[in-house]
């Protein structure tokens, strides 16, 4: 196996009395989709936030391509190669799709802090923007305001924006949330194709999608890793069945 893109080493985080992340170690290698699953409140999003940089762990280390990024800010980590999609759609709703992509493209080129270069009507930026939108098949809707888009299209746009910086690591927090079966299938196809270019850490509740996509799965319960392995190993693991799938069955 190649050297890991992302490596977590004994990460701990607590809020007052609540232990949100309990000694978590895991890694993501190039070319794999690593799914992080667990019941609600297991601390999945808290863990993603620590990898992304909006929360700091109390102890432990986070390495990106072997470099310690534990104390870096969000923008610095993004520039080092982390892309993220959020649990709740997080796009620029007051702008069109194309404008969203243009803002991402100029940020990617390190040219956002330019006072005398045009933005929305710059031909080369528009070109870049269309490439970004093309990755998720949204070019035909480039001129539509995001606030007028359907939910599924916003999720796709967000994925496109997360990929715009060509990150080595993608953090996807429930990309299928709120999507219909058809949209889920479409999203699954797109994410599956991304494997070649990005290491992916995926949080998802849609089990069909997880088993279809994940190369490896880590199961988080009450902040701690209780199991770790391939899809087949995880679905056979009795501890997982009890802690997680059991509950899921009841819920369904």
């Amino acid at each position, binding site marked *: 196996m190649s050297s890991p893109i992302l490596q977590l080493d004994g990460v701990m985080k607590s809020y007052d009395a609540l232990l949100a992340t309990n000694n978590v170690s895991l890694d993501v290698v190039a070319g794999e989709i690593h799914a992080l699953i667990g019941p609600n409140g297991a601390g999945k999003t808290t863990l993603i936030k620590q990898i992304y940089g909006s929360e700091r762990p109390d102890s432990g280390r986070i390495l990106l391509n072997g470099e310690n990024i534990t104390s870096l800010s969000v923008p610095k980590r993004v520039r080092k190669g982390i892309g993220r999609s959020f649990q709740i759609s997080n796009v620029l709703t007051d702008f069109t799709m194309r404008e969203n992509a243009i803002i991402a493209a100029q940020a990617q080129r390190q040219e956002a802090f330019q006072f005398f270069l*045009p933005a*929305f009507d710059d031909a080369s930026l528009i070109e870049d923007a269309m490439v970004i939108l093309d990755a998720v098949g949204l070019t035909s809707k480039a001129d539509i305001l995001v606030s007028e888009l359907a939910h599924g299209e916003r999720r796709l746009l967000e994925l496109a924006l997360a990929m715009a910086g060509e990150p080595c690591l993608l953090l996807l927090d429930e990309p299928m949330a709120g999507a219909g079966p058809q949209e889920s299938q479409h999203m699954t196809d797109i994410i599956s194709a991304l494997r070649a270019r990005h290491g992916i850490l995926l949080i998802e509740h849609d089990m069909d999608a997880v088993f279809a996509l994940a190369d490896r799965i880590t199961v988080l319960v009450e902040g701690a890793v209780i199991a770790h392995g391939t899809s087949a190993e995880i679905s056979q693991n009795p501890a997982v069945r009890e802690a997680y799938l059991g509950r899921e069955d009841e819920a369904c």
Partner: protein
Amino acid sequence: MTRFFSLIGRGLLQHRAMMYLLVGFALFPLYTGFADLPFWNDVAIRIMLLGMAAMGLNLVLGYGGMVSFGHAAFFGIGAYCVGISSYYDIFNGWIHIGFSLVTCGLMGVIIGLLSLRTSGIYFIMITLAFAQMLFFAFVSLETFGGDDGMSIDRAEFGLIDLYEPLRLYFLVWAALVIVSLLLMFIVHSRFGVTLRAIKSNESRVEAMGLTPLKFKITAYVISAMICGLAGTLFASWQEYVSPDIMHWTRSGELMIIIILGGLGTLAGPLLGAIAFLLLEEFLPELIQAIAPDYAENWMIVFGPILIAIVMFGRGGLLGLLIKLFQRKGAS
């Protein structure tokens, strides 16, 4: 370079309303000359200067989404730069302007860095508090007139004698044109769209690897400098400066001007300044005609008008005009 010029051309076309207003102000003295209404030149100067200050504030308020309730402070610092320079026998207007831009820039950095640590209601209040702090600082400076303020002479601009008719008018007009062009560039530049993106969704901009604070503080400093420039020219026009120039109600006035004209538009603040000052001129006269005893109390009508503007005036006057003419991209 060609991109630079294409931006000017396209910008001006996109902002017809702004262009009409600037041309209108250039031609206005012709009218006042023929009609023999020199008083209205002074009203126009006040409109242009308050409009300029509001345009500066609009960069942070309308485009950056930072509700600063203390921008009168920068207007006042700009004005006091004239007063303080004159006190030390420096009457050169260019030095006044340079002094004002540097001081307001520095104060903008300091106040901005401290205030931008907070957000929401806290930001509104801390900017107000800094303005109050400066207000009381100038009240306490007896050397510069304290509470009563100080009389000053109009600045000297080489061959341009500001006491000659219309010289000051066109100096102010030229400054307004420069500020308008500058803002036009900024708003459509990569910096400007990123600033607007931050207003729309700060965390997405951060996820693009950018540091929102860097953009916000830069916009804050630019807007402070524009307000300072307006204040500098205002002091020279008024030939007098006192702490009242940075009273907190003026910060409110600037916000009213913006929302009246159209938040987050280029021409909006200038249009709002016209409406605001005309209201201030004509409302007392109107009340005089209806109830002569209460002409002095025009604020009793003005207050409710403000509330009505907030409640029903979405998009401001510019939005209304655009709706009337149905012209695309006339902002």
